[in-house]
């Protein structure tokens, strides 16, 4: 009997990797601790070298002047018309592409999961989304130039078949809306990928339960579905915002340096073309970190509300 208990206890500990009783914990060999830390060490070293140190270095450099002394001059240098305008355009483009991407992505994901489309479609779309959400940078810029550029396929078809000149109507790919349209190509798939599991979490029974007292579909979504999806939606929205805010390769390949947005300004600083003040470059980076951090702090605050229902 006693032997059986010991075996069961040992099996439990091995299976779960936990020590259930305090007596065994006291006899835990000390040697294993260092082995455990050795396993985590590569990750910690990697994170310190390639995440923490570069960030801290830039934050520190934002407060150090050319003479090596502590100064607020770099931060004050951000408040010029050009840099403030760059931040404002960046925030607007990121906000527009994040909001549109989140709404369209939600609509597509809902159509895909709740719209009773053919069953094989879902995995195909998910795979495609995985690819498309990484399809950024120069290839994406090229794809949109060959689609809606001045000699693009859609532009030419609209002009020759429908007699509608896209560019005379005021559209320009190298503008606010052009860049937003391009960003949507990776924002929508990212939204679909992230929101799909949350939509799966909406149980069919909730819809049936709402229908029994006579709720319409609209009432179900207004009072049950969307309030439950809301925190995931906002969390993904802030992620999409940060995603667009830091996107450089797409914007640079598309517009060169003609559009004045913060990543391009920072890129020019890296290349050494402009500004010529490393402190100001670090201050630019600090501003970007602050903005994306503010956008992402929303999520943990709201997620607690969603988890009540997801349990």
């Amino acid at each position, binding site marked *: 009997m006693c032997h059986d208990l010991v075996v069961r206890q040992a099996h439990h500990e091995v299976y779960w990797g936990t020590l259930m009783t305090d007596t065994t914990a006291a006899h835990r060999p000390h040697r294993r601790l260092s082995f455990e830390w050795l396993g985590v060490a590569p990750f910690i070293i990697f994170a310190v070298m390639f995440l923490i140190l570069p960030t801290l270095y830039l934050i520190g*450099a934002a407060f150090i002047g050319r003479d090596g002394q502590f100064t607020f001059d770099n931060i004050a240098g951000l408040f010029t018309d050009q840099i403030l305008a760059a931040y404002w355009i960046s925030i607007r483009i990121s906000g527009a592409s994040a909001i549109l991407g989140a709404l369209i992505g939600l609509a597509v994901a809902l159509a895909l999961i709740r719209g009773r489309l053919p069953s094989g479609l879902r995995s195909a779309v998910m795979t495609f989304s995985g690819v498309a959400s990484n399809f950024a940078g120069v290839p994406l810029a090229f794809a949109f130039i060959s689609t809606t550029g001045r000699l693009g396929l859609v532009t030419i078809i609209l002009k020759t078949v429908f007699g509608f000149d896209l560019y005379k109507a005021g559209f320009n790919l190298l503008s606010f809306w052009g860049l937003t349209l391009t960003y949507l190509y990776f924002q929508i798939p*990212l939204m679909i990928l992230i929101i799909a*599991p949350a939509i799966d979490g909406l149980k069919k029974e909730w819809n049936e339960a709402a229908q029994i007292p006579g709720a319409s*579909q609209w009432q179900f979504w207004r009072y049950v579905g969307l309030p439950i999806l809301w925190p995931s939606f906002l969390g993904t929205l802030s992620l999409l915002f940060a995603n667009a805010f830091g996107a450089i390769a797409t914007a640079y390949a598309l517009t060169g340096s003609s559009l004045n947005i913060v990543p391009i300004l920072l890129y020019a600083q890296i290349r050494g073309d402009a500004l010529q003040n490393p402190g100001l470059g670090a201050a630019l980076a600090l501003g970007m970190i602050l903005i994306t951090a503010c956008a992402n702090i929303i999520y*943990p605050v709201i997620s607690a509300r969603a988890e009540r229902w997801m349990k």
Partner: protein
Amino acid sequence: MKTNRFWARLVFLLGAAYFIVPLVATFEFSLRMRRGYYSFDSYASVFSDPRFRATFGYSVIIGILAIIVGILVVVPAVYFVRLRLPRLRPFVEFLTLMPLIIPAIILVYGYIRLYNSSSVIPFTGSAPGTDILLTCAYVTPALPYMYQRRRHRHAHHRRADPDRGGPDRRGQHAPDHRPHHPAQYSGRCAVRRLPDLRHRHWRIHHSEPPQPPSLRALSTKYRRQPRL
């Protein structure tokens, strides 16, 4: 419900058009090397160019190296944090979520300032050093997706069963592995949760899903046991 289906199809078709047209247009553009007619000449000239082959090969090698480095860095950390060092978990998770908050261009700017040729670790000073830095720069943004927390399926069985993460006989909960961030739910991950084969075993031999244990079964299972 029929209108529901109609709207679903319409939304899906519009979305599909937005995603497919640029790809078609790129392909069409690639055939327009010769004036007046379509040809595959641009492909021929690209593939016969040794510089293209060299850069393409370099990209492939760096990509594969990034995958290997990412797995070597993340998998042991996931294993030990999950099973041996749970108190490190919040810290490690915060680190893996950092690339979502800090744009890649800022990290790159930090690398260039921190690891330039006159610094303590001059990565950018030599060609192999630059390769290492490039590989690691590709691993960093993938961290949130590689370190994905276990998804919580079958959460409703969890209430009273320690084997499925519910409270054990001392009323303590096994670690709860719900994601912190919606990105961790997504399919973009390298390290997925291992399949729970015990559950599958149950499904094969029984036609209905496992029920939460009855009070009587629980009282037998969690009866007072002598301290070891």
